[in-house]
């Protein structure tokens, strides 16, 4: 991760904190107590795999994830886990399809397409505290 991104993320976090403090002036959605990042506290926090890629280099972040490649054989698979120091089951999907979007204010509908890159990890991992934990995680 480059220092530019760290600074940007810190700024966004600080901004979200200020927004939450503004309460109903901003709106219920942004005033939610939910964190700005995935909350994996309380039961052991996993560490990321060291590898990955930067899809929009030189912009954006380095992501610790190896996307599936439908053109490659299973034997040349990169580590499909997002969690390191991990022992267990993993699943990943790369699925495209369609569906219907609805504007809930007007009732107007629209055909839309999607790509779902999703998955899970379930098993044992060594957390940021150096201790062994068990957990089930969805990749969303």
């Amino acid at each position: 991760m480059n220092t530019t991104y760290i600074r940007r993320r810190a700024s966004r976090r600080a901004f979200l904190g200020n927004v939450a403090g503004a309460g109903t002036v901003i709106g219920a959605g942004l005033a939610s107590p939910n964190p700005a990042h995935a909350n994996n506290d309380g039961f052991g926090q996993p560490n990321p795999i060291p590898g990955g890629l930067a899809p929009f280099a030189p912009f954006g972040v380095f992501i610790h994830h190896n996307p599936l490649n439908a053109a490659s054989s299973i034997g040349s698979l990169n580590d499909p886990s997002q969690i390191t120091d991990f022992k267990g089951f993993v699943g990943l999907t790369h699925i495209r399809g369609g569906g219907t979007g609805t504007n809930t204010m007007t009732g107007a509908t629209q055909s839309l397409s999607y790509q779902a890159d999703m998955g899970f990890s379930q098993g044992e991992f060594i957390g940021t505290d150096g201790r062994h934990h068990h957990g089930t995680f969805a990749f969303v």
Partner: protein
Amino acid sequence: MYAGPVGLAQQIHDYNVHIDVNDVFWMIRVPHDAVEVDFDNARASLRVRGLKVFDDHDLANSLTDGLGLPGDLGFNYPQIPGVFPTRASVSFDVEWNGIISAAQIHNTGQHFQGSFLETNATIEWSSDQPGFRFQAEPANPARNLISVLGNEKNGAFFM
């Protein structure tokens, strides 16, 4: 989600849980019984209802923390305006079922090893947020591009 064919310039919703504070990419703890695995029979499922997520509008905004892409500096990306994330919830049933191919992998470069299966897979999912909801078509095995199940060890468990 795309208003047209799958492509960054057509994307209008991008649902994810954001990168966590330790840089783990788009992973969120879910109840143990949200996942069921029968690896020997190449079957697994992931079922979650009402998961709170962010809608970053598009992948570029998701991975630039809402800054978008300039699109005019000689890089091979379209111009994507910056967008602030909004709240949404998603529900999904993902099923892995049936072997297409299999491999035993021992990768000393990436420090992972295990048994891996390329499988068939389906998904049914929906999203809900202020002013908008989406319902995907019924599960359709023909929509799978590539899906994988693994029983693996990596990092400190790699031998």
